[in-house]
């Protein structure tokens, strides 16, 4: 806790400094103390204030809190890759339309927000199946499965869009997308949802809504999509219990739940979160042939 306390203070001071400087708007007397990372009560802008200051300040403030804004140059491209490690449960719709539940003993998902690309490594089992190991990859518009990371790829048709959506469902991915939507044509919109800030924008024509919690960390990400696996539906990710795993002022949720429509398809406890790790997504050599 002491470490979190030490880490949270500078990050939030930075937010306050940035907001104080932003567009000459001084701190309002109406700001409300909010708790962040469980460390202490600090003054963060209210939802109303962020909405009043507009999408750029709101999105960059949230990105700052999440550790995406770095360096004296206030770079918003400093975090480009990420890896989540955990375990939990998941559900998948089988070809016959029934839902199958799995226990996931190993969950490692790595992301590259630039390509964009993702690799999901799973070790899972269910009462009706033998233990499975799966490695699902997407890089740009191509999707494939791998026998081992980077080795023996098998193309998977119609999976690229679904797998790529998982990148933008992450807290960091959703804000990464919002930062890039801060253009005149980006259409970032702000709303007050029961006191919390909601940020809306479109990515590849699909609406994304990101709702922040009282500490300005992503609480919920909704993505309206036409999924190859689930049809027209809303994908919803919920995040909680943020923790700065490595001490780089990079809070990650320790609990994440994904829903496809009414079905919970993933419930994972995150045990490690690495910022900017070495993760690459070259097409396996056998597929190049």
């Amino acid at each position: 806790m002491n470490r979190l306390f030490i880490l949270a203070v500078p990050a939030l001071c930075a937010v306050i400094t940035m907001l104080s400087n932003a567009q000459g708007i001084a701190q309002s007397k109406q700001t409300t103390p909010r708790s962040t990372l469980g460390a202490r009560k600090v003054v963060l802008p209210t939802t109303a204030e962020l909405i009043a200051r507009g999408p750029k300040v709101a999105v960059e403030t949230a990105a700052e809190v999440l550790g995406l804004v770095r360096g004296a140059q206030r770079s918003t491209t400093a975090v480009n890759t990420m890896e989540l490690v955990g375990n939990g449960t998941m559900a998948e719709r089988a070809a016959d339309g029934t839902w199958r539940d799995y226990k996931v003993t190993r969950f490692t998902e790595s992301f590259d927000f630039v390509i964009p690309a993702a690799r999901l490594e799973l070790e899972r089992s269910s009462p009706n199946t033998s233990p499975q190991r799966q490695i699902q990859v997407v890089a740009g518009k191509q999707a494939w499965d791998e026998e081992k990371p980077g080795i023996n790829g098998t193309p998977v048709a119609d999976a690229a869009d679904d797998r790529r959506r998982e990148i933008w469902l992450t807290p960091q991915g959703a804000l990464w997308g919002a930062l890039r939507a801060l253009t005149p044509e980006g259409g970032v919109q702000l709303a007050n949802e029961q006191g919390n800030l909601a940020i809306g924008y479109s990515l590849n024509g699909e609406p994304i809504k990101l709702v922040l919690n009282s500490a300005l960390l992503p609480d919920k990400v909704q993505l309206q999509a036409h999924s190859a696996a689930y049809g027209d539906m809303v994908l919803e990710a919920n995040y909680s219990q943020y923790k700065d795993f490595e001490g780089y002022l990079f809070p990650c949720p320790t609990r994440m739940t994904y829903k496809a429509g009414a079905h919970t398809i993933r419930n994972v406890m995150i045990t490690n979160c690495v910022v900017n790790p070495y993760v690459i997504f070259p097409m396996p050599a056998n597929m190049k042939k």
Partner: protein
Amino acid sequence: MTRHAWRSSLILAALVGGFSFVPIALHAQYGSAPSRDASRSKTASFATPRMADGHPDLSGLWMVGVARPVVVDEKGNVVMNGAAREGSGANAERDGFLRKRMDPNRPVYKPEYWDKVQYLDDHEVSEDSYFHCNPLGVPRQGPPAKIVQTAKELIFLYEAPAAGGGRNAYRIIPIDRPHHPVASQDQTWMGDSVAKWDGDTLVVDVVGFNDVSWLDIEGYFHTTALHVIERLRREGNTLTYQATADDPKVLMTPWVMNPVTLTLVMDPDAYIIEDYPCHERDEEHLVTTEHH
């Protein structure tokens, strides 16, 4: 290693340059503070000087980026003129190394080595030999701070690590000669270098490396099969340096590293500072694996 001195210089570099580019620590010979005044590094273009044989003359003192003036307060103290978050050196260091890892230009290792790269990166403070008083080596040390060129050879001189240089290291590179039969097999930090001209571009071919140095700080290891090609091209008072690292034992494809642009230092008083002595005395005090 004199970790404190090393970290101080690194933090200074972060604060001054924000790690987007870090001016090498070229200092003037007199005055109350080092001279990094950009106005003294005139960048006006002029014709590329040439040797008698017609090749470009790369000789000179070279500086990465354009230096910023150092601010000195009324007591003569050097003032940090870069805005780290909350003025915190620790934040500057954390951000700097996090940003160092943001470069999407990564070497593509064979899949069986991905975990090793991650491990080395995670344990950089214990695994990176540079942190334990060893040289950076080629190509990690980057471009030289000073080049002395004759018709038959080049001498590369390197400066302290703020520029990514390598602890006052040096290289003597013959032109149009084959690799040395012994040195090219010697497995050293710098390897064995030979140069040739490709038009106006100097191409330096380097082999004979050990397998201890890294290609860069992110755990990018290599084997003794490493083969480095460096290309240097001078146009007026600008020098472009680019290295390509190939190690077919561990890399899927040669890694073409980002080019570095250097500016000729016109200040006649500028000089290369002596590096800090390196004595390992911090390792036993490390309590985390936080990157440095």
